[in-house]
């Protein structure tokens, strides 16, 4: 009986370890997946002209930023 319990506990620990390992692996896949998405987003934005738009809006005196009104 005692031996059977030990086997059960060992098998439970083994399962938990596997779950933990798989979760860790899943996190890595999620990190890689989202990194690719974000890099693609920057490239797509640059192709759409986001950089030019950012440059042009950043080069004018922003009245809102300064708290000024016309």
């Amino acid at each position: 009986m005692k031996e059977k319990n030990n086997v059960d506990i060992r098998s439970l620990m083994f399962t938990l370890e596997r779950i933990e390992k798989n979760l860790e692996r899943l996190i890595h896949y999620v990190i890689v997946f989202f990194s690719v998405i974000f890099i693609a987003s920057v490239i797509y934005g640059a192709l759409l002209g986001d950089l030019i738009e950012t440059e042009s809006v950043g080069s004018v005196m922003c009245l809102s930023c300064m708290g000024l009104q016309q």
Partner: protein
Amino acid sequence: MKRKKRHIAPHRIGQIIASIITLGHFPALWTGDVYQGPLKAACVPILNCWGCPLSLFSCPIGGLQHFFNLHLFPFYIVGFFGIVGMLVGRMVCGWLCPFGMLQDILYKIKSFRWKLPVWTTYIKYAVLVIVAGVLAWITREPWFCKACPAGILEAGIPLVLADKGGDIRALVGWLFWSKMVFLTLVVALSIPVKRFFCRVFCPVGAIYSLFNRFSLVHLSIEKEKCKSPKCGVCEAICPMDINVYDNPNQKECIRCLECVYKCPNIAVNMNFYKPRIKITETENA
């Protein structure tokens, strides 16, 4: 009595260098003109007012709102935030942000200390979604810029003070004074509260905090190295008041690494996520 040896923390050096680089348009000191070069196409990963004459780069939150004002999806800025967040999480808040550095300095002033209730740290998500997102989209106005204390500090006050012709001073109205009141409030509360603005209002911090658990750079704690009962040094020195022992990668952690350097038991470490593909012995058994 021996004098305490003083040294500059590495993250402080990072903040100083980042401030010099981001606010590096020095000709503006005598011309007063805003920089209009190709560097403005690039955003910095921190709150950096692009209306400041010294600013060389663009503000990501200003850019985000600008695209929302135009009813366009900001692919470039979202991707930029994502890449930085995936790499380092909120580390940029601790190592690069000049406004964060100002708050760190203000907290060094001796006064009574006040610990913020945890619910206040959720306000910044509302600021991000409602003020910098929904309101900017609906009204086509950059509402966060209209309140931003970094904007009035870096752009508003210097330009109004340097204005010789009186053209800019003529535009000073209720908005300027309301921003001044908010800036005063933030400065006053940064003396008794650690990093008040970063924890309660900063939308940049709100974005990066979402990545803290998954970012490549993260902290780990070897609990077996901690002496029992725990010494509490990491929690006492943390500029964000987080419980390092229980969860070193909380959303509020700015990875300033003060806990890593000052842990007397070398129990807190900075790590990079490494894929663990090798099958261990237990798995083979």
